[in-house]
């Protein structure tokens, strides 16, 4: 694959570090700081937090959400949104579970991924070629995927997946849970795609300035189809990990995951306006959300307070860098 050392790089600042301009670097540092601050606070308040088994536990909780948000991150980087990730996750989960429990494990996995990819492709075609705003195109897909899943399942829940399949959700490779390894692998692959390939550079360029991207002769439409297809594919991939973990599949599986997935992307520093951010940030965002739940459970925060506490921590973790960030940006630009 060609390494993108071309025009895109020239436009960035000369003082790059790890391929990041100073303001970008700042966002990354501040998000990691928020994460670390949260960890320190929890370690101070509860002795059960800073244990190896709890750290593994939190990482494992973050993994399914991250996988779902990872593909979504690419879409958000182009300045779009994919509202269908939860519904596609649900549909793929049902198809996979149904085929796997009927004795076709390989076919089940392939079919689920194919369904996710197809939903994503359709989204991409609608956005790139039919010029439908991504919010509407993927909102339509949300209902279509939900509808297909309803028809397919008819209110049924599928239980009892085979043990070999469940390894991807519940297994361990040495001390590390398999979903965490999958998460790390995904971060590396997508990070390389975003920062070391022409496709990746193109994704940032489209999000940063779509007109300029088009005028520079970039195949904008094809790249858009690619990112939506990846988002669908990653959602169906997340579905496999989720059903392997819960040992059950039903239509509404992904429903309540949509907003947390978008939140994970934003918490990780990816701008909803496109062009800024990355998958490593999304991993940080997923971890923050998993940490908040872990912390509330360990501290025994009362049921009725939990929703409010979650909201406050989300706001605090982004507000800090907005305040400091503004000052720094004023200095550098």
């Amino acid at each position, binding site marked *: 694959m060609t390494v993108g050392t071309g025009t895109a790089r020239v436009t960035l600042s000369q003082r790059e570090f790890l391929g990041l301009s100073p303001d970008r670097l700042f966002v990354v540092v501040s998000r990691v700081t928020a994460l670390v601050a949260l960890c320190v606070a929890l370690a101070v308040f509860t002795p059960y937090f800073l244990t190896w088994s709890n750290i593994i536990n939190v990482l494992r*909780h973050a993994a399914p959400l991250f996988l779902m948000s990872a593909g979504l991150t690419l879409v958000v980087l182009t300045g779009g949104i994919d509202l269908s990730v939860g519904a596609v996750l649900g549909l793929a989960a049902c198809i996979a579970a149904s085929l796997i429990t009927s004795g076709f494990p390989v076919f089940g996995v392939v079919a689920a991924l194919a369904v996710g990819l197809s939903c994503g492709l359709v989204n991409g075609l609608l956005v790139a070629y039919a010029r439908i705003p991504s919010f509407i195109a993927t909102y339509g897909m949300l209902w279509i995927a939900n509808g297909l899943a309803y028809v397919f399942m008819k*209110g049924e829940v599928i239980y009892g997946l085979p043990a070999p399949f469940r390894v991807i959700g519940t297994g361990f490779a040495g001390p590390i849970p398999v979903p965490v390894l999958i998460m790390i692998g995904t971060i590396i692959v997508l990070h390389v795609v975003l920062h070391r390939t022409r496709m990746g550079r193109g994704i940032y360029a489209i999000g940063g300035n779509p007109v300029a991207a088009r005028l520079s002769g970039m195949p904008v439409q094809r790249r858009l189809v690619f990112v939506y297809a990846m988002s669908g594919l990653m959602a169906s991939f997340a579905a496999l990990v989720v059903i392997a973990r819960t040992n059950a599949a039903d239509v509404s599986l992904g429903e309540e995951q949509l907003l947390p997935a978008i939140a994970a992307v934003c918490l990780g520093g990816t701008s909803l306006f496109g062009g800024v951010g990355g998958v490593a940030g999304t991993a940080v965002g997923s971890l923050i959300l998993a940490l908040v739940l872990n912390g509330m459970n360990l501290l025994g925060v009362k*049921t009725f307070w939990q929703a409010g506490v979650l909201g406050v921590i989300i706001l605090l973790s982004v507000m800090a860098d907005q305040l400091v960030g503004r000052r720094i940006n004023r200095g550098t630009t």
Partner: protein
Amino acid sequence: MLLNRRQFATATMSVGAATALGALPFAGAIGQGKKATIAFFVKNVTNPFWKACRIGAEKAGKEFNVTLEVVAPTKPDNIEEQTRLVEDWIVKKPDAFVFVPVDYKALVPSIQKANKAGIPIVNYNNIMTDIEKVTFIGSDDEYLEYEICKSLFKSMNGKGKVVHIDGVPAAITAQNRKKGFERAVKDFPGIEVLASQPGQYRRLPAQQVFENLMQRFPEIDAVVSANDDMAVGIVEALHAAGRGGKTKVIGIDGIPDAIQAIAEGKMYATVDFSGHDQAYLAVQAAVRHLKGEKIPPLVMLPVFIIDKGNVGTVARTPEERKVPSWEQATRKA
């Protein structure tokens, strides 16, 4: 094979007087030649509980020769959509509504409109106040949880450490089930409640919450889960952590997965919360009302605990289990 459940005590409670009489002019609508139409409402088409309700209602519809129209919001448990559906159906003017609100307060104004339009309402599953209704048919969540907790605590000789996993905090069922749990805890001073945390009635969140709690509590003697879906997730988490068999887990609902877990000795007990029976009896109540019969204002289904002792005689799905007869269900305690 499972007839003995019908021998359980049947309780009918009478409340107030100001109910059910708004529809007198409509008595006798059945039997004037035209087949009656009943609009049967469910909260969603995704949860197997409402599927069981649908099957129960359709069974009754066939048996009593009425046209049954199933009305469900496409977006699960959506208040706004159910409000619209109610208004649409007031215009269509069926002979009766068999109704469950997605929110027991938010739907009151809509049902009051149906009252004004003179449509008789049979309320099932979630009780509504401030409306005129023929009757309410359901299970008493507080009593169900109280009874199953009592049976659990007795099996622990009245002492031990217990974790409570709550449902959706705002749901009336969750609030009542929690009250039942708290009442049972008061009856057994040797029972220590380690934590009470919300699991959103869903498997994955409950699993993650419980995994967090396992980090803090190395010894848990029993888990009281507000429904079976969460209970099965908790059983999975216990086994995955190598702590299976040491902790007694109870749920509510009697879903197939829980029945299987009890049969395998992984879960301690559940209590039947049969939407199928509620819906069947609710449609029957509507038919009887239309024929001019007098219906008791409140019909509560009997408590039926499923544990190791009787799990062999219990059918896997609620719809395969035998429905109590009208006389059994409405017999005075």
